[in-house]
């Protein structure tokens, strides 16, 4: 059991800046970077035949309101404290958090001598998380129920979190100035936690009379290899969990396809487009459970017969009554009665680059992502300056579904065959996670020959 790791993931979800999906506009404007192949299988850096992709890490996380890491966490000596008191006022009635993390462990590529064919294989570990929670959940956790007497607090959170491994093989073909590519991805799921979108009711009502509690639940979530049990035997709750980031299982499998092209329209102008995760899904079979809580409970305290009071039986035994309070959230574990599947987010990139001078180029990038009913669209224009032969800097202005103005940047160091880079679509927040409601960056390295 790795409760702390699981907790970390949830916290990251909470902190994450808004990004309804993994937005990598800047990467799409850097076709000379080997790792740009990950968002377009047709792209191979020009003039190179062998490609060894080293580790690359990208993180894209967001929160729907202006909540940043620094708002929630603060240090007290060696302790890290969670302070929701600073956050609650900033929350919307309904809040969403996103978390997309991609770790590309290794990738290899080779182009044929005649440069007409390109072959690529790779492995990546991906985590996709989405959560939705009402403000009232944070309020009741932080302030208790007393400030909300007379109100029905809906506190049921929703989540769809899963991680998987991608084992990919791709092929590209050049037809004159047109490169087209396709990639097959074999998916092995590691873990998943998914709430049933139709059964997310958790409510608590505190009656103004003498604070009688009405608790209702109709809540279901599914788990594969994450939650083993929910123990409500005591006054609190214990989730016996495993962590995300565990070993993938070949019982949790799926597949996805990436397709793309890149066309050199003129000496200076090129365009590209790709669609990722086509048909991508994972069906969960390993250690799958459904956890259901469906209760309605009215707690009015001890009901003492009046005749007992009159006759002097005046002992109030609260213990037994409070014990039953836990029963309301008693989760029952069962085998799911329906297919438990996770859809991979569909991602579409398109854009173009124009080489102004030997050192300057301009770019246009667009991205669309869709998962379930959640979509994100981003558009950006970029400029790139080749400072030295082995150093380039770039900037980007982009707008997405959440904010109209984001400044991105990149820095690429390319000494010899080495490519080392760091980039972000959101320069101001990209590396200041503590003070930003959105985090977006990517860094990595590769060798190209």
């Amino acid at each position, binding site marked *: 059991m790795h409760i702390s790791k699981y907790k970390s993931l949830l916290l990251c979800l909470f902190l994450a800046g808004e990004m309804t999906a993994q937005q990598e506009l800047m990467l799409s404007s850097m076709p000379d970077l080997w790792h740009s192949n990950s968002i377009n299988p047709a792209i191979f850096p020009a003039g190179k035949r062998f490609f060894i992709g080293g580790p690359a890490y990208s993180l894209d996380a967001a929160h729907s309101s202006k909540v940043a890491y620094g708002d929630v966490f603060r240090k007290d000596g060696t302790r890290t404290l969670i302070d929701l008191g600073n956050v609650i006022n900033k929350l919307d009635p309904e809040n969403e958090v996103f978390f997309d993390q991609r770790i590309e462990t290794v990738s290899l590529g080779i182009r044929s001598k005649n440069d007409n064919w390109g072959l690529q294989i790779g492995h990546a570990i991906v985590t996709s998380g989405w959560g939705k929670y009402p403000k009232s959940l944070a309020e009741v956790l932080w302030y208790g129920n007393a400030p909300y007497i007379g109100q029905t607090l809906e506190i049921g959170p929703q989540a769809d979190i899963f991680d998987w491994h991608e084992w990919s093989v791709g092929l590209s073909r050049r037809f004159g100035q047109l490169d087209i590519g396709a990639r097959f991805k074999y998916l092995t799921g590691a873990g998943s936690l998914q709430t049933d979108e139709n059964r997310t009711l958790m409510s608590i009502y505190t009656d103004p009379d003498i604070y009688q509690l009405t608790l209702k639940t109709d809540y279901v979530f599914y788990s594969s290899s994450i939650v083993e049990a929910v123990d409500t035997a005591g006054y609190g709750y214990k989730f016996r969990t495993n962590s995300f980031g565990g070993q993938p299982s070949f019982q949790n499998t799926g597949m996805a396809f990436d397709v793309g092209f890149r066309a050199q329209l003129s000496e200076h102008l090129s365009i590209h487009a790709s669609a990722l995760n086509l048909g991508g899904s994972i069906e969960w079979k390993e250690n799958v459970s459904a956890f259901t809580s469906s209760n309605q409970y009215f707690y009015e305290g001890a009901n003492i017969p009046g005749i007992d009071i009159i006759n002097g039986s005046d002992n109030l*035994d609260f213990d037994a009554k409070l014990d039953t309070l836990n029963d309301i959230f008693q989760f029952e574990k069962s085998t799911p009665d329906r297919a438990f599947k996770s859809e991979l987010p569909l991602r579409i990139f398109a854009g173009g680059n124009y080489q102004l001078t030997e050192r300057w180029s301009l770019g246009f990038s667009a991205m669309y992502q869709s998962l379930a009913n959640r979509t994100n669209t981003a558009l950006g224009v970029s400029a790139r300056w080749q400072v030295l032969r082995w150093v380039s800097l770039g900037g980007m202005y982009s707008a997405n579904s959440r904010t109209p103005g984001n400044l991105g940047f990149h820095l690429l160091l390319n*000494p010899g065959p080495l490519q080392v880079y760091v980039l972000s679509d959101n320069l101001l927040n990209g590396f200041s996670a503590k003070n930003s409601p959105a985090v977006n960056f990517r860094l990595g390295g590769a060798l190209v020959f």
Partner: protein
Amino acid sequence: MHYKTLLRSLVPVLFVSFVAWPACQKNEFEDPELAERTSEFAFPLFSTTLNLKDLMLKVLSDSLSNDTILVNPDGTMTLYYSGKVAEKPATDIFKDFAGGLFPLTDTVSYGPIDNLPGVSVSRADLSKGTIYFGIFNGSQDTLTGHIRIPQMTKDGNVFVYPFVASPGANNATPIPVAGYILQSNNNVLEFIYEAYKPTGERVKVEIAPGFPGIFVQFENLEFSYLQGYWANQRYELIRDTIEIDINQTNLVGDVYIKNPQVTMRIANSWGFPTRGVVKYLSFIGRNGEEIPLTSSVFVDSAVDFNYPSFALGEVGQTKFTDITLDETNSNIAQIFNSQPTRLIYEVDGISNAQNDQSIVGFLTDSSNISLNMRVELLLEGSARNFGAEQTLDLNFGGLTDLDTSKLESVEFKIVSENGSPISSNLQLYFLDEAGVAVDSLFDNGAQFIIRAAPVNSEGAAIGITRTEHFVTMPAARFERVRQTKQAYLSTAFTTAQDGAVSVRLLASDNVTVKMGIKAKMRFQ
């Protein structure tokens, strides 16, 4: 230029290290703790509904054993309670003629069946006892003979006692008489004996010439039935005291009960006319003062009891006589609303007060005269600061074990929903093990936690009055209170409109008292 090559190699490493460093600081994500905060939790503690019928039964008659509340057809309630029964059994009378010794002065002698003054018995059924015949033969001859009592029969056979008396002999053999019936029209028994010498000569038995030699003794007689004539005689009947403790608590304040009634019920199975004469009937007030009862129901302080009639074949039956004292025929209302503590009465009996010689009376061994005093209270009236005190055992249950180290304060919410026309002013004192008050529920003295419901013109409750009180306790005070095991409850009841009007208590009246709590916790 080697340094440039070195630089080109190192810069990416340094750069990546710089950028990646924050991401490696994972300790900030590991095991974070919730910051200090103040949370307040609200939850209900208990609720209870007190039925007025149960409550009144408890408050008014807790110490009485023969109490009951009856719900009248209109929903009103009447409280009945009775004192102990005072009685005069007939067996007390039988003791007066349990036996006797007398000589047979001649061969035919006479003796009365009883010797009660004014009583002439015509029949007596013996259920126990013995008869002795002492025969002292003073002659020189052996005498033989028998003694016969014609009025004493068993199964239709006259009692006959045969004897043989030797010269100088002294015979005294006990003979059981259970089952014999003595019957005489003139309260006289005949004792006839015949004694003969061996020669056949009939003689009188004498100890010495002129001195009778036969004695008759009845001993330990018990009767199952007496029948005869009871003349006008006065005798002590009943004298008793009834404690009127209508509340086990020390009552204070004013209570007015509308039209209380006291009913004296005489149950009589004596088979002849009896007149009860009240020699003394007074209540004793709270301060020991005597409050005489005056009533028009007693003519010359007397009342004739109903009785079973021999002529009507009512032997064995019990007849009742009820004497009801109320505000129309007595000063009982005034007496009762002064909250008396004791009733003392003494009653004599007069048999055949009319001196009717034609009345045949009877007594059986189960005949009895009993007097039962019953108080009847229609629960209608008014009260102002009608007080009650009680010590209660307390147990805060799970709250006793609650970890209060994080507790800042608690706030109790006390709610009453009262459907009765009674208000309750209450204070609760929390007692330590030595019985010393360590705290009280309300800082500013007793509070009206229950307020009377509105009443209609008849004084009946016609709605519900809701009252809310909040009691805030800092953690230290709550800590002190929750450890107590006893509480002293001081309550004062006042009826609607501050006791100014008479209200009617209905069986359906009830009051719901409930409590919730807010606990403010400081987590650090």
